[in-house]
């Protein structure tokens, strides 16, 4: 008999907890399944009236007019545009403030500023929507008079601001977790703070930084109210951010809070739009996984 073979009780925390934890992890799978199921079920009914091909290739999205046209391309374009411009705002600004907080700011500044920035994450999105409309848009119109009342740029800027705390806080945590010894090694050969930050800390914290980018961008893709209020409800194929556009999410909220009859083709279109959005985020995530697995550097040793 091997003296080291002491059987663990089935109820020992060490044996039970992994199963419990796995159980909790499965919630996210169940959630995804439920979402896909709900979206798909209604989408199928929708696609019995509208051809899948027309839906994904159509260039006109006029689902609620007397002669409806279901071409989802303009909505996808709107979503891509908002995501693109908001990430132009949020990624550099978020990363910049993360670097500032973790590498430059004195401890006291950091402990005060970080929670202040985090308040930005809790402001209801309609507040942001009105902020975009009544504060940012007028400024844009002063700078570029051709700016429309509803425009993608203003919404993007504000969506970008909304996701700043997500990026700055999470990136900052990741950077704070980089061991001091690494920084010391860099300082000792005469690095400036900037070089320590950019060449040592950011690469070492890359996994966390990328994770924060993905979360931030996902939020931008899924953001609804700001876009619905400030970017307008004008599905069109346009690459001009100063024009009004419509995103996938704005359409979903427009219809789901509107007076349309449930079960009608128009109504069901939101499920098809939802599935489209789901596919887009999936693609984005797979891409992000690929990128981060390529650039990840471990320092766990």
């Amino acid at each position, binding site marked *: 008999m091997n003296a080291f073979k002491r059987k663990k009780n089935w109820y020992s925390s060490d044996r039970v907890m992994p199963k419990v934890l796995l159980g909790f992890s499965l919630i*996210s799978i169940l959630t995804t399944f439920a979402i896909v199921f709900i979206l798909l079920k209604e989408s199928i009914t929708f696609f019995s009236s509208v051809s899948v091909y027309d839906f994904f290739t159509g260039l006109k999205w006029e689902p609620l007019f007397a002669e409806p046209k279901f071409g989802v391309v303009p909505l996808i374009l709107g979503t891509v545009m908002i995501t693109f411009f908001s990430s132009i705002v949020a990624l550099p600004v978020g990363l910049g403030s993360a670097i500032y907080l973790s590498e430059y700011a004195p401890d006291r500044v950091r402990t005060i500023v970080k929670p202040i920035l985090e308040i930005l994450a809790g402001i209801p999105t309609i507040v942001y929507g009105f902020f975009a409309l009544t504060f940012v848009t007028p400024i844009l119109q002063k700078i570029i008079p051709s700016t429309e009342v509803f425009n993608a740029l203003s919404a993007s800027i504000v969506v970008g601001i909304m996701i700043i705390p997500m990026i700055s806080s999470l990136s900052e945590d990741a950077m704070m977790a980089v061991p001091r010894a690494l920084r010391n090694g860099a300082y000792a050969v005469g690095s400036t703070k900037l070089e320590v930050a950019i060449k040592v800390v950011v690469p070492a914290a890359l996994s966390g930084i990328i994770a924060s980018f993905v979360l931030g961008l996902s939020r931008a893709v*899924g953001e609804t109210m700001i876009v619905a209020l400030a970017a307008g409800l004008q599905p069109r194929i346009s690459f001009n951010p100063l024009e009004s556009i419509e995103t996938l999410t704005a359409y979903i909220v427009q219809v789901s809070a509107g007076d349309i009859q449930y079960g009608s083709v128009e109504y069901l279109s939101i499920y098809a739009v939802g599935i489209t959005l789901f596919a887009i985020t999936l693609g984005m995530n797979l891409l992000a996984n690929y990128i981060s697995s390529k650039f990840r550097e471990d320092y766990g040793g």
Partner: protein
Amino acid sequence: MKNFELQHIQRRKRSNRIMHILFLFSTMIGIVTLGILLVQIIAKGSGWISLDFFTHFSSRFPEKSGIKAAFFGTLWLMLITAPLTFIIGVSTAIYLEEYAKNTWLSRFIQTNISNLAGVPSVVYGLLGLTIFVRLFDLGRSLISGALTMTLLVLPVIIVAARESLKAVPNHQRNASLALGANPWQTILRVVLPSAMPGILTGSILSLSRAIGETAPLIVVGAASYIAFVPNSLFSDFTAMPIQIYSWAGRPEESFGQLAAAGIIVLLIMLLGMNLIAIMLRNKYQRS
């Protein structure tokens, strides 16, 4: 010292200074925006905040309107959502980071989680309506709303918690395991405390999102006008952002000001809720 070298260092120091200012500026963008928002909101709404604002229900008379129902609704919602989110979120993160082998299952779970982060909140509303309200027959109740919110904000805390678990140096785990601690003890006593700052950041961010979301609650069936305080998990309820949304949509200017007052209260609630997490985070980060 060679002259060009000095110049080079001076140049590097200059770019360091410039970037320092740019980084500071980035930080200021968020703070200034928040400042502008707060000034606007406070200018508009602060005149409406009084004791009555907390003790009255919503009303057709702006001056008699209060946020009692919404305040307690949100309070309840957070009291349910916060622990659920924390437990499920941190558990999932631990499983993925500490236990899961690199199998298809764990990769699948991971993809699911980051994917869920991008699902718009209305869709979570539809989910809550279908699953909790209809399938589980919980009705348009607090618990349905809270469960929906939990699912909505889970990805944020999971991702944040995972990243901070990942950043805990392995030598700490090794030290514990070498003393004969089992993996679970190691996680509970060594890894989690080290990862706590990041986990708490995740909690702050996810609960911030939960407290400000409107659309999913409306879809789940929270009403805009309720003149009572929820008294059980199965009560009808309304919440701060719904009340704010409803007021903001009214034509009368004074309701718009009430909405601003509501936002002030919401932000104070948010800050109050985050305070514990912020204090804990500062404490863990110092050690």
